[in-house]
């Protein structure tokens, strides 16, 4: 038995909590449900931290290289003598990091929700769903088998569906949850076919064996999958490309991102957990998990790079124009995941050139903290002000000092200002991009500047802009549990950058020397500062001195107009081009072709039945005709056309 056998408790505890809460929560446990959820997650998080400590510091490393440890393996289903489906636990640097992130953020969200969801009628069910999600996500990251990951992948999708639609009396929540489910399911079918292709050619579903067989040049599986082609691309490209579609769907990459902004209909702590820190990075995790295979196929890596880079820039531009606090954050999530994606895309396997991989994982790590902090802060604001439109918000800094300060730290982190965590991880990514592709680097720096701009636009609009006179003196800044989580996460956000991730998580397991190049850092930081400066200039005092801006700073006023123009442009793109260009033809197709076909069929049937009305039955002859027609068609096809 492996010494890491206990790791199985990490996902199992939330599962137990889900079962208990799901079965008895509503009737018997009620308000203590939250406490039960928090306790199970707390133990789970402690175990994860212990695992990480043990893995990174004690026995994870052999000869200076971090090992892949199979903590548990159980053959669950022997599909055929060659292929078996296992349930197992795979420990390697990324899965260990992920369990820490998932269990920790989930714990924070559990605690935060104690205050946020207080008084909610379906409190117990909410915690049951949270536990289910945490279980699925932990199972996903620990999977040792590509089929196992797929099962948990779907479970994560289902729990996300349940949580987005938590307020199911609200029609827009129902629509949003359906949209998320169907869009990601659509992408998952790509994933499924990708799995089938990879499994068929490698003859295994086990990650370790699959990676080994497909990357060993000269092995029969390697030759098979490279030599088989379909529509001009090798089966490896197809398999990985399809798997990437699955990842892109979950990670809301362009053009499969459309579900993410709508998913904000769910309770805000849920957005913090699922749609910011954990589930949406599953796609990045998947690519990282199969990275040795991805790294030998440059075509797919190019796709990953460009999809990631485009999503990053696209989402950043859109985020500048949004007025819903959660939607700004949603697009910023999409943009940051784009960073992680293209960072993987520009990376190579092993050594110094694997910096992109390290940077991506590092960014995943820091992003989890600052983005969940931002979402929880937004949750506190919404809880306090009962609106999520930033045009109605402002001047909250004195009323919500804790939220204000933690939000500021998170904004500085995401903008990449040293010494906050985001700076370090973004630095690695920019460095990797710089050494690989200058165009990607340019996009990345531009996106960073935009990120700083829109985050501070959000920050000033919510916390500055105008002074609010308190109507109700008793209005408190959230409960203790809410403030506590904000403080903890703010501390993590401030210091997570000093965690030596690059010496732990690398593409080949060998530690990488961490190096911050001060000269290199100057330009991106300056760009970020410019973004912040611009935001300060525009939004800090917008409402107090609007006429001064208009008259004295005429050029800036026009710039503000240009921002407005981007807004319009975005609206133009969605309303005019996407709706007219894609939506309308699809609707037209449905209305004229599908409907027409059905109606045609119906009228034809009706006509024929009208002709033969005198007989006893209207349609049976018709059926026989089709039946016979089918036989004739098959016979002609197979005997005369295909010549069997």
């Amino acid at each position, binding site marked *: 038995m492996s010494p890491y056998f206990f790791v199985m408790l990490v996902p199992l505890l939330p599962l137990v909590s889900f079962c208990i809460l799901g079965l008895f929560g509503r009737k018997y446990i009620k308000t203590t449900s939250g406490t039960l959820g928090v306790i199970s997650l707390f133990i789970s998080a402690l175990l994860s931290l212990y695992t990480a400590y043990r893995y990174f510091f004690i026995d994870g490393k052999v000869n200076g290289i971090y090992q892949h440890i199979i903590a548990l393996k159980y*053959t*669950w*289903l*022997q*599909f*055929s003598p060659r292929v078996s*489906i296992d349930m197992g636990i795979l420990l390697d640097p990324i899965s260990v990091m992920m369990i820490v992130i998932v269990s920790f953020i989930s714990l924070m969200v559990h605690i935060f929700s104690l205050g946020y969801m207080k008084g909610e009628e379906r409190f117990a069910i909410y915690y049951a769903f949270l536990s289910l999600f945490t279980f699925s996500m932990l199972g996903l990251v620990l999977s040792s088998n590509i089929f196992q990951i797929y*099962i948990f992948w*779907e*479970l994560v999708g*289902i729990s996300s569906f349940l949580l987005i639609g938590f307020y*199911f009396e609200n029609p827009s929540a*129902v629509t949003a949850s*359906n949209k998320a*489910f*169907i869009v990601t*399911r*659509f992408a998952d*079918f*790509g994933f*499924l*076919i990708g799995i*089938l*292709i990879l*499994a*068929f050619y490698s003859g295994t579903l086990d990650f370790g064996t699959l990676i080994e067989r497909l990357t060993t040049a000269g092995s029969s599986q390697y030759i098979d999958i490279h030599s088989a082609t*379909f529509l001009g691309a090798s089966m490896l490209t*197809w398999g990985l490309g399809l798997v990437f579609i699955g990842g892109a769907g979950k990670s809301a990459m362009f053009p499969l991102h459309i579900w993410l902004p709508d998913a904000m209909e769910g309770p805000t702590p849920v957005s913090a957990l699922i749609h910011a820190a954990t589930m949406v990075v599953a796609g990045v995790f998947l690519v990282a998990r199969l990275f040795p295979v991805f790294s030998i196929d440059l075509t797919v890596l190019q796709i990953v790079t460009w999809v990631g880079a485009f999503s990053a820039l696209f989402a950043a531009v859109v985020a500048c124009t949004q007025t819903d606090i959660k939607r700004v954050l949603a697009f910023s999530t999409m943009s940051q995941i784009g960073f992680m994606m293209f960072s993987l895309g520009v990376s190579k396997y092993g050594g110094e050139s694997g910096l992109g991989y390290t940077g991506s994982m590092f960014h995943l790590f820091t992003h989890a903290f600052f983005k969940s902090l931002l979402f929880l802060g937004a949750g506190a604001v919404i809880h306090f002000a009962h609106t999520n439109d930033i045009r109605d918000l402002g001047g909250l800094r004195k009323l919500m000092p804790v939220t204000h300060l933690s939000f500021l730290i998170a904004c500085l982190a995401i903008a990449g200002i040293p010494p906050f965590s985001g700076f370090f991880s973004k630095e690695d990514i920019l460095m990797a991009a710089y050494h690989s592709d200058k165009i990607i680097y340019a996009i990345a720096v531009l996106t960073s500047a935009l990120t700083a701009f829109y985050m501070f636009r959000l920050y000033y609009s919510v916390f500055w802009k105008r002074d609010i006179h308190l109507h109700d003196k008793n209005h408190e800044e959230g409960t203790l549990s809410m403030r506590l989580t904000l403080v903890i996460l703010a501390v993590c956000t401030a210091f997570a950058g000093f965690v030596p991730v690059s010496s732990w998580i690398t593409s080949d397991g060998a530690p990488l020397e961490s190096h911050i190049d001060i000269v290199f850092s100057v330009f991106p930081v300056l760009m970020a500062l410019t973004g912040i400066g611009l935001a300060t200039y525009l939004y800090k005092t917008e409402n107090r001195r609007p006429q001064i801006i208009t008259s004295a700073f005429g050029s800036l006023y026009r710039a503000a107009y240009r921002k407005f123009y981007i807004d319009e442009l975005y609206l133009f793109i969605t309303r005019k081009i996407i709706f007219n260009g894609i939506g309308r033809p699809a609707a037209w197709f449905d209305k004229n072709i*599908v409907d027409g076909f*059905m109606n045609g069929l119906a009228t034809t049937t009706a006509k024929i039945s009208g002709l033969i009305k005198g007989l*006893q*039955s209207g*349609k*049976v002859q*018709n*059926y*026989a005709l*089709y*039946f*016979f*027609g*089918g*036989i004739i068609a*098959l*016979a002609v*096809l*197979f*005997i005369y056309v*295909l010549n*069997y």
Partner: protein
Amino acid sequence: MGIDFLILMKQEWMVIAILLILLFIKVSSDDWQNENILKLVNILLLINLITGFFGYRDGILFNEMFKTNHLIVTEKNILSLGTFIVSLQSYAWLRNNKLVLEFYLLLLSTLLGMFYMISAGNLLMFYLGLELSSIPLAALANFDLEKRKSGEAAFKFIISSAFASGLLLFGISLVYGTTGTLTLSALSDHLDGSSLQIFAFILLISGFGFKISTVPFHLWTADVYEGSPVTVTSYFSVISKGSVLFVFVTVLYTAFKSYAITWNHILFILSVLTMVIGNLFAIRQNNIKRFLAFSSISQVGFILIGMSGQSQAGTASVVYFILIYTFSNLGAFGVISLVSAYTGRENLEDYKGFYKTNPRLSWVLAISLFSLAGIPPTAGFFGKFFLLMAGAGQGNYLLITIAALNMVVSLYYYLKIIKVIFMDSNENPIKRLLTPSSPKLALIICTTGIILTGFVGYIYEYIFSMSTIF
């Protein structure tokens, strides 16, 4: 010989014994209460199911007219299980029906026919079994005697069935004419691939295609399913279809093995047509029975993918999927038949707000629909995945892509029903139903089956170990 005669045909003897008992009751006295008859029948069917699990033997009888092996016994057990569930579910509908004994006599005759059909080692025997299983079915379709639609369904079924049987028989006679044998095991040596044989083979496939309702041989399905009593519809869509699928896969994999390339292509065409058309029509149905009819048509399209796998996993995944399909479809039909028996409402609109009044039945229906849609962790997901995986063994990715797209489409309409049940409100919802104990037992069996069949890996491995090596 004597003892073999008893043991190898034990499942058939069991059904015959039950038939005789029921006949005896029918002839002897009139004072049996319906309640008691139903109880007795259910106990007998349970005994039939349990005895099926004992005394597995492989063997051949009557010059290979009748053959049996582990897989065949298991297939018969699946059918017995399905029949048992159907019988439990029919309680609400039958308890006030005067003709309850006739119903069971007919039902069990069809089951006997299916057993002989599955065990057939000869095309003639297969044909006899097929007819024995379909003619009483027509009478069953007509069992709602006062409803005009029910009679119409029976009529349409018997006419279409006769037509299909005629062509099937024509195919069989052509096979006999060109090869000189009808024994399945000997057939493969005599096939030479002449055009006439291919034509005969296509006729045979169309006969199978009719029974499992693949497009374009499916047209009878919707009308017959809609017109028949719900219990009979579920029997049609699960047991009758399942039995023919069992035979279909065996016949293709043994007798027509040398035609593998041909039937692989035929299955490709039929599968695509069946999935696409089944789905397109399912989207537009407002009658929930008709909806399930079309959705079950498209399910067969998926089964054909697994069948095209040409491997041990091909057979195994088909049998495994049918087991899961039995649970899922009967689970869905169980709820619908209850609602139909108590309220007579069968439209999708009627199910608005169903969750508010009948939360438990709603969950059973939802789990069954999830399983039919292939969403994990329900068993339907594993079933579909294995079918696709078996199909992928032939490298037919185009087919699998089409299948995956169809799964998205089907997901859409299954979710639509779930939305109607859980989220839509209704001023006049279906009233709260008290589920009698036997339908309740049936629903419990189905739900447990849907959850466990996927997770207990042993079930698939067991089926796999018995499947014929291609």
